[in-house]
C-alpha cells in the first residue's frame, strides 16, 4: 500500500512500542493482537530498525496481512491486518 493509503486506514489498535528494544515491539504486538477482531487493522510504532523486518515475517508465519511501513522521523509506523 502507498503511504497515502496507509495514512487513511482505520486503526483499531495502536501499539506504541517506541520505548522498547527488540524483541519488545514484536511482543507488544503479539500481546495486543488478541484484543482486536479478525479484519481489524493494528498500527505499531517502533524506533527499533529490526521491527521493520520482524513484523512482516511474523505476519507471514501467523497468517496476518502485513500492509506496509511508513518511515517517520526517528521511528516507524507499521501496519498489519489481523487474520
Amino acid at each position: 500500500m502507498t503511504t497515502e493509503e496507509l495514512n487513511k486506514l482505520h486503526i483499531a489498535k495502536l501499539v506504541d512500542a517506541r520505548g522498547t528494544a527488540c524483541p519488545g515491539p514484536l511482543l507488544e504486538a503479539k500481546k495486543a493482537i488478541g484484543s482486536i477482531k479478525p479484519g481489524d487493522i493494528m498500527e505499531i510504532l517502533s524506533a527499533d530498525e529490526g521491527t521493520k523486518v520482524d513484523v512482516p515475517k511474523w505476519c507471514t508465519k501467523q497468517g496476518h496481512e502485513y500492509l506496509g511501513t511508513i518511515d517517520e522521523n526517528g521511528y516507524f509506523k507499521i501496519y498489519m491486518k489481523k487474520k
Partner: protein
Amino acid sequence: MEPKKLCLALYTGSVDKLTAAGVILGGAAADDMKVDIYVLLQGARAFRKDIGDNSDKLPMAENADLREGFLQSLKNLKVKTWVEFFKEAKAITDVKIHICGLAGKVWGGEKLDDFIDLADDICGISAYITSAQEADVNLFI
C-alpha cells in the same frame, strides 16, 4: 496445527548469554512456539534463589572488561533482565524449564524449591535427549 517446538540447552550462567537467550525466547513466544529449556551446569547457578537476575553475581561470558558499559547500555535501552524475559515468555507461550539434577547438586540445590520460581522441575538427561529429538529447533547456549 501443532506448534513448532524449540529445545534449548542452557549451559551458560553468564549475564550476556542469558540475556541473549531471553531475546530468543521472546521471538519464540511471539511465534507461539512450545519451548523446553534444559538448564545445565553453569546455568543452574543462575537459577539459584540467591542469584537470579542479580547481575552483580553473574559473570560475563565475553568481554568481561566491558561489563559495566554493557550492563549500563542494557539499562539505557530499557532491555529486560534475563529473568524478566523468561517470565514474559512463560506468560505468552508454553515454556517449561527443567533443571538438570546433576547441575542443581553442583550448586547446592537438590529440590525445586532451591531455585527461582521460573523452574518447573528437576530432570535427568534422558528428558533432554527426548525433547531434543522431538524439537523443530535445537539451540545450545
